[in-house]
Structure formats: structure tokens, C-alpha cells
């Protein structure tokens, strides 16, 4: 009977094996297999996942059709058609590690572009490095990825969260807003904690006598902020800072506006342009908005930006592209640039991970949001221009227009190479190049 059990084990293992080794895809050098990871379900799907995928897909389709303007007019990636393996980011960091390994080792993708959650980025980066495979992080904010590790095969095609809050603090100065005291409300997980830390630090540098009245830490996905709003109303800070995003931010605005929280005080949402369209005129006027880069309405006119806006609004009528779409597109163009640089170097063959990685180090490219440079983390971490502005409901256009826009060059809001954001802020932004 034990023998039988053993036979059973072998038999089944064998069967299972046959079943799945069959699934392992073979490499094909006429096409470039790109794994794209974004939230397709769960709390971040609406605000970031789907739109980011829309942005990336729009560009990928155009690239495969060869309809993108110069310098991106080559079909696909350097002539290689782009095949996408779409993966849902929902389900926890450990699942992402598994899926990333499967994508590389079973489904043989040539590179992976994606990840929105900082937790996922931190988790998957070492896995990709271990496998010596090309991983381009697309959206996640935490600076820890490249400040605490050295990677060869991992890149981030967008600026990290540090600049968001430096820019916000700088904007207050530029607009001559005197902050006497601050009330903060941020989700109690890494994103909220880091954002508030950076903003608090930056403000301490730029407006030293601004005090912190209260720090509120609702749970991620709480959705109910009655008590927090009461507390803020009681403390009456002159500035309210929040890094809330997506559904939580929308709920907060819906609940806070009727209670007069926005009256006679400045409210600042550090990463919030993605809620403007859903909220419409429920978002009060005069709120200071950040977009994690010169994305959406903050983006300056440029051939590639005009092309992008036109294409995506045609592809998805009624949707005006904002941060996630921009970052999705930015990531695809980053990979395209690297692949084509690598092919220029290796004589037009489909590049290996090594070649792609080598090509992407320190690369520069033009994205809808402006000129991007892999400046930090030994050329693995991008920096990009940033901007901030205020909300203003436009009754004719039936949408919120951003006014009083101030743009900051990348070097003004990002630390110089080799400096950690936290230190850079606490030392008073040494080497910042603002004009």
C-alpha cells in the first residue's frame, strides 16, 4: 500500500509535469515578448491599473502599426513586433514574485514592464535581478528600490515619489502661500508614510516656522473619514496635506467638501490628478494638485505629447489622459529606446537582457511628459520634470482645468546622483538646479 502510494506520487507528478512543461513557450526572435503588469482588479485598478495599461497599450498598438511620430517611427521595438503578456498585479507581493518568475522562465517574456504598488516593486526587483532578466518599473513611488539596492537588470522609467512632495513644497513658496500649521491625512502604509515624511521635511526647509498640527493615519481602503474630518475641522490648520489617492481620496473629498473643510484654508493633494475627471465639479476649486510629474494637463506642448493626447483620446473617447496613462506610455517608450539602442550596438539582432540593460543605463528619451533621464541609481532611476497647479471648474468644457501651473525642472525637485532623497531634503536640497 505504501508502494502504491509512492507509485501514485510518481505517476501524478509525471502527469502534472507533462501537462505544464507543454505550456512553456519557446523564444521567437521575430517578435519581442513584453510582460505588462498592472492592477486589473482590486482598489488600484480604477485609478492606476487600467489607465496605465490603456496608456501603454495605446503606444504599443501604434508602435506595432508603425504610426508613431519620429523618433519612435520604427515598427514595434526596432522592427520586432511587440507581443504583450498582460498580468494582474492584484493578489499580493508574494504572488507577484511567483508570476514574475513564471513570466520569465515559463512564458519566456523578453522583458517585463509594470508595477504600481511600491510593495510589489520592492518584492519583484531582486527576483528579476536573480534571474538576470530585464525589469522596468513603471509607476511605483518608493525611493527605496534604488537607494537601498544596486541592480543591473532593474530600472524605473519614471521618477520616484521623492520629487512629488519636494515640488509641492516648492509650489507653496512660488505661489507665496504662507503656511502656519499643517494637518496631514495619509494612508497608514508605506506610500502614505513616505509621502508625508518627504513633504514635512521639504516644508521644514522652505517654511521653517510651519508647525504640524495633526497627523492622521486612516487604514488603506477605509472609505469613511467622518472622524478624521472632524479632527481636521477642530484643529483648523492653515494647510491640509494629503497623499490619499483613488477611491479613498474621492471618498474623502465627497465627505469633506460638504462639511466645509475646504473653506478658507489651503488643501493640497500630492498625487491626485487622476481623480479630477471622476469627481468633476464635486472637487472644490482652488485645491492644489500634484500629478507625479508633468503629466496630463501639466504636460507641455511637444510633438510627442500632442501625438499621445490625440491618439489616446481617439482610442478612448471621453477620457483625458492623466498620470497613469502618461507613465504607461513613458515606460513603453523607455523600453523601445533601450532595445533600439542595444540593436544599434549589436548589429540589429534581437538584444539579450545584458545588451538591453547596458543600453538603458543612463539613457535619455522624450516622453509625453517631457525629457526623461536615467540619472539616479547609477543610471537606473529616471528623473523627470514636475509641476503643480490649482483646480478650477470649467462649466463650458464640463471638466476641471488646472490653473496657476508652475513647472519645475527635473534637477530642481530630484536629488543629484548618489544622494538619498531623505538626506537631500534634510540638507536643504544641495545642488538643486531651479531657474
Amino acid at each position, binding site marked *: 500500500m505504501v508502494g502504491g502510494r509512492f507509485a*501514485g506520487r510518481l505517476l501524478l507528478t509525471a502527469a502534472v509535469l507533462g501537462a505544464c512543461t507543454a505550456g512553456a513557450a519557446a523564444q521567437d526572435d521575430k517578435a519581442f515578448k513584453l510582460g505588462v503588469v498592472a492592477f486589473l482588479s482590486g482598489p488600484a485598478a480604477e485609478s492606476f491599473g487600467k489607465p496605465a495599461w490603456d496608456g501603454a497599450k495605446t503606444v504599443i498598438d501604434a508602435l506595432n502599426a508603425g504610426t508613431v511620430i519620429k523618433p519612435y517611427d520604427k515598427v514595434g521595438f526596432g522592427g520586432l513586433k511587440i507581443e504583450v503578456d498582460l498580468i494582474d498585479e492584484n493578489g*499580493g507581493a508574494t504572488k507577484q514574485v511567483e508570476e514574475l*518568475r513564471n513570466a520569465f522562465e515559463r512564458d519566456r517574456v523578453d522583458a517585463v514592464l509594470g508595477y504600481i504598488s511600491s510593495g510589489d516593486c520592492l518584492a519583484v526587483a531582486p527576483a528579476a535581478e536573480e534571474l538576470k532578466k530585464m525589469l522596468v518599473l513603471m509607476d511605483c513611488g518608493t525611493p527605496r528600490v534604488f537607494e537601498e539596492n544596486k541592480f543591473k537588470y532593474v530600472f524605473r522609467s519614471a521618477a520616484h515619489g521623492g520629487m512629488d512632495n519636494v515640488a509641492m513644497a516648492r509650489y507653496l513658496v512660488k505661489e507665496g502661500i504662507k503656511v502656519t500649521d499643517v494637518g496631514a491625512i495619509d494612508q497608514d502604509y508605506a506610500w502614505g508614510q513616505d509621502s508625508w515624511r518627504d513633504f514635512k521635511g521639504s516644508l521644514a526647509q522652505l517654511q521653517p516656522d510651519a508647525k504640524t498640527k495633526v497627523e492622521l493615519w486612516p487604514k488603506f481602503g477605509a472609505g469613511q473619514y467622518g472622524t478624521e474630518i472632524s479632527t481636521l475641522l477642530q484643529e483648523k490648520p492653515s494647510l491640509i496635506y494629503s497623499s490619499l489617492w483613488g477611491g479613498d481620496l474621492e471618498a474623502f473629498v465627497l465627505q469633506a467638501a460638504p462639511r466645509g473643510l475646504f473653506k478658507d484654508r489651503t488643501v493640497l493633494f500630492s498625487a491626485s490628478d487622476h481623480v479630477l475627471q471622476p469627481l468633476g465639479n464635486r472637487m472644490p476649486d482652488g485645491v492644489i494638485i500634484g500629478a507625479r510629474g508633468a503629466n496630463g494637463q501639466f504636460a507641455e506642448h511637444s510633438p510627442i505629447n500632442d501625438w499621445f493626447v490625440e491618439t489616446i483620446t481617439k482610442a478612448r473617447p471621453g477620457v483625458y489622459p492623466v498620470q497613469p496613462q502618461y507613465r504607461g506610455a513613458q515606460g513603453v517608450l523607455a523600453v523601445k529606446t533601450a532595445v533600439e539602442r542595444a540593436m544599434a550596438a549589436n548589429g540589429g539582432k534581437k538584444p539579450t537582457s545584458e545588451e538591453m540593460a547596458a543600453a538603458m543605463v543612463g539613457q535619455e528619451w522624450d516622453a509625453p511628459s517631457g525629457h526623461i533621464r536615467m540619472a539616479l541609481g547609477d543610471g537606473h532611476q529616471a528623473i523627470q520634470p514636475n509641476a503643480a497647479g490649482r483646480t478650477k471648474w470649467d462649466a463650458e468644457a464640463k471638466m476641471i482645468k488646472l490653473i496657476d501651473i508652475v513647472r519645475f525642472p527635473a534637477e530642481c525637485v530630484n536629488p543629484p546622483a548618489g544622494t538619498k532623497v531623505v538626506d537631500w531634503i534634510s540638507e536643504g536640497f544641495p545642488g538643486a538646479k531651479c531657474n
Partner: protein
Amino acid sequence: MAGWLRTSAAALVCFVALVLLGRVLPNWFVLVATLAFAKGIVALGLVVLMRCGLVSFGQGIFFCTGAYAAGLTIRLLGLDDGVLLTALGGLLALILGLIIAPLLAGYRGIFFATLTLALSMIAYGILDKVSWLGGSDGFNLHAPSFVGYHPATPQDVSYAIFVLTSLATVVAAALCRIHFDSLRGLLSLAARDNEIRVEYLGASVRWVSGMNFAVAALLAGIGGALSALSLGHIDPDFAFWTTSGEFVFLAILSGYASVTAVFVASIIVELVRSYSSQYFPNTWQGALGLFLLLVILFLPQGLGSLLLVRRGKPKSQEVRAESGK
């Protein structure tokens, strides 16, 4: 005694077979199998518990104990020997289990399940909040060493972890088999059937439950440590209720007719999950749920029953034990 020998022999053969298989299998499958076995060990613990009529919906608390024990030892103490870490994870989980056992040994059925779930939620809350435990983002582990051997390539690392996991798996499987076939194992089934009679025969139901609970905790801890090592990452999700739910699913899916079934089941689930999220990226959760429902509906006694039938063995004591309730 012969039973001992036969089981141990079979275990040894299985181990050798796995070690060899691991060499020929594609690396991605080795990784899948490693995780599947690690989770299988946890599910095996649940099976032990189920045999005395208890199902814990909070194995996550021991799973994460094992994982964090291993992770923090690497992180804070710099000790990175895989074998040591696994043992440590198991040990700490066992201790925690022995502390909790008296609190829960008095409860049964759904109440037991719910209370264990509540405890694991508390663990989740703590891990999520306490920053030196890595907070919500958790933290990464560098590759472990193995009694002095430092694997060079990632493939070697994953293979080494696979071997370690296989070893833990066959040992756990063999011990559980021996336990199930022993008087003690029989007593567990008895306690599940009729507690009054067990007490009247002079044995303590609380004691039986407590013991099985502790064993389950130990196995969950080992599984947690191994998962952490093979994933190279730890976060509070290790204690989340969906994680615990997955273990219960594995245990129910495999039934307790056969120890082997547990590991076959967990490999299947691992594959179903990863393939469904590849082929239906938008509806993989629903697909998983549907799979779950169908299995529960059409395999009421778990995969194990299939295995036994295939073996042409008459309805075994365990199978009836399951339909018994």
C-alpha cells in the same frame, strides 16, 4: 514496526526521486513545486488537525511566524543557513501554538475556525503596523546558504531550496503517515467521532486537540520559513485571511485519505492559480473561485479518495472518517 520501515523506505525513495526530478525539470517548475510543497506542508498540518474534527482558518498566524522568524534571523542576526532557519521557523511556530492551544482546545467546529481566524487577523494587524518588522511593504531576504554550501547561480539557489523543501516534505509526510497509522492517530479520529466516549475511555479530548493543534502549528511554521526562503520576500500577507483560506482549501481538496494527495493537490492549485492569472488576467480570481466550488462539490472526499480508488484499495478508514460527519 514493519509499517515504520515501509513508510520510511517509501519516503526515502520519494526524496531521491524528487532530487533527481529537480535536476531535469525546468527551473520555473522547480520554483512552483517548491512553493507548492512548502504550502503543502502547512496544509498537511491542517489535515492532522482535521482528523480530530478541527479546522483552523488562521494557519496564517503560524505561517507568518515561521516566515518572519526566518526572515528576521537573516536580517537582524545575519544567520542565513536554510536548514537552521527552517528549523527555527518551525520551533517558534510550535511555541506559539503551545501558548494558544489551551485557549482554543475547548472550542470546536465553526467557532474554533472563527477564533483562529481572528487571531491571525491580529497577527496581520501587528505585522502591518510595526515598522521594524518591515511594515506593510515587508522586506526581502538574500539567498540562504545550506550547511556551508553557498549556491552560485539563482538556479542553484532555487534547486537547493527545492531539495531542502522536498526533504522537509517527505519527512513531514512520513511522520504524519506513521502518526495516522498509530494508536494516537486512531484516537484523533475517535475524538472527532465521539468525544464523550473518548473521555469515558480515559483519554482527554482537550489534550488530543491540543497536541494536533501544536503539530499543525509546527508544520505551518516550517512551511512559512520555506516559502519565505524560496520567495525571497516577506510581507504581512503571509498572515492575511486569504492565505489561511488557501491552506484550508488545500486540506479540503486533498482530504485526509492520503498524505500524498496533499502535495499533489497543492501543486495542482499552484498551477491552476498561475495559469488562470495568465490566461484570464481580468477574471482569474473568479476562475479560481469557480474551480474551488467545483472541487468541493464534486470531490467531497478530496483527491485522496481518487488516489485510494486508483490503488484499488477498499474504502479506507480515513475516507469513511470524512464522510462520517
